[in-house]
């Protein structure tokens, strides 16, 4: 009788140990899968940050055009410029023809690259640090990071990334609480409303030319 009870207790212990092991293994697997998904979501931002650090490091020994050519493929790959262009023009997007849309996207892309090249133009041991990831919607996440300069308070750089055509890309940048996309949308709407679409194109082209002197 005693032996039976002992056997049952051992089997129960064995069962509990097995269940505990399986639970831990499951948690480890899902955590690993979760981490892997986070890495995939963060990848466009990591690539952008690495490129921005590199472009700052080479700023003393290269000119604007060289840094532009270095950054161009990184921006093209990791930003959804087409979607951003559509959102930044908002209601006016539907009112322009296909040729004008393509022209605008090209100019907007050039402006984006030129702005990054002119803003990140000197290296003083700055670093980017990943902070957190939050889900906004299915296939849309908010990635929070910080940009640290040696002698100043860090600047928060938050990115909205979205999956489209099986690829995660950046669709918005928020620096210290200021959403670049909202800012541009308000500006462009004001210019289109007051001066027309061609005036906006002219101003953007002028900005691109001006940024090359920085």
């Amino acid at each position, binding site marked *: 009788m005693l032996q039976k009870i002992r056997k049952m207790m051992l089997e129960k212990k064995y069962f509990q140990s097995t269940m505990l092991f399986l639970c831990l293994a499951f948690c480890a697997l899902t955590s690993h899968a979760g981490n892997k998904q986070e890495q995939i979501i963060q990848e466009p931002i990591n690539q952008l940050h690495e490129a921005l650090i590199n472009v700052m490091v080479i700023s003393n020994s290269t000119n604007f055009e060289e840094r532009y050519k270095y950054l161009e493929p990184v921006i093209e790959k990791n930003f959804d410029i*087409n*979607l951003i262009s*559509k*959102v930044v023009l*908002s*209601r006016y997007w539907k009112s322009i023809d*296909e040729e004008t*849309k*393509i022209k605008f996207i090209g100019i907007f892309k050039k402006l984006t690259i030129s*702005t990054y090249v*002119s*803003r990140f133009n000197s290296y003083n041991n700055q670093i980017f640090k990943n902070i957190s990831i*939050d889900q*906004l*919607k299915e296939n*849309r996440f*908010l990635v929070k990071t910080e940009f640290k300069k040696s002698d100043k308070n860090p600047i*928060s750089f*938050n990115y*909205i990334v979205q999956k*489209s055509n099986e690829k995660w890309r950046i*669709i*918005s940048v*928020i620096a*210290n*609480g*200021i*959403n670049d*996309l*909202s*800012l541009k*949308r*308000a*500006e*462009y*709407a*004001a*210019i289109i409303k007051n001066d027309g679409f061609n005036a*906006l194109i002219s*101003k*953007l082209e002028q*900005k691109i030319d*001006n*940024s090359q002197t*920085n």
Partner: protein
Amino acid sequence: MTSYHFYNILKKIIMLAMLCIMAGCATTQTTDNYAKDDTLEPANRVFFDLNETIDQALIKPIAEVYVDVAPNFLRTGITNFFENLAYLNVILNDLLQGKINQGLSDAARFVANSTIGIGGLFDVATSMGLPEHDEDFGQTLAVWGVDEGSYLYIPFFGPNTVRGSTDFVPKTLLNPFYYISSAILFPITAINAVNKRANLLEASNIRDEAAVDPYSFTREAYLQQREYLIHDGNPPVTGYDDVFNVDDDGSGVLKIE
């Protein structure tokens, strides 16, 4: 300050808060989502252009000369001095927002900088673990649920909102310099204005380089920055992608693809 004066100030704040609530209720909402707060845009643009003209012609050149001639330690000292003078307003608004721990920390910061920091010239409090905070009555009203009201561009003072402009009263009344004679107040105010403009030179240069419509740029940056401050640098995650929910036909597909 006597209890009579304190009661008087409190009465004025409450009256302003009531005016603010009424102003918030009376603001006309438009259907234009990203300019909904700028119902006074025509007048605001006039004041903005006036400010920019005076700034470019007079204030910015003075600030640039000031940066060239004044050593960094002097500029830092002047910045610290005036920020410390304005810190009583920060403490008041900490408490009004229910941030008791922060209020106590800021009170200790004010005392440390005023004493060890020799009248606020030196910021010793930060290295003592008493960080600087940025609170004002406009943020307090936001925490209390008061609507922002219309965007305002105030001559000489710059961007603001109906709600934010209520900070002018407590900020002025809680600044010790308000109670000294105008013969000293005006030159002190001028030094503060030039120093502040000098501190904003980099930001204004970035705006001039980046903005295609400086007025809209300033408005949007200001309003978003206010939201950021109201949430103490940590706005809620929901709302981050609101910009994608406006004029969205839901397709998400570009016809050119």
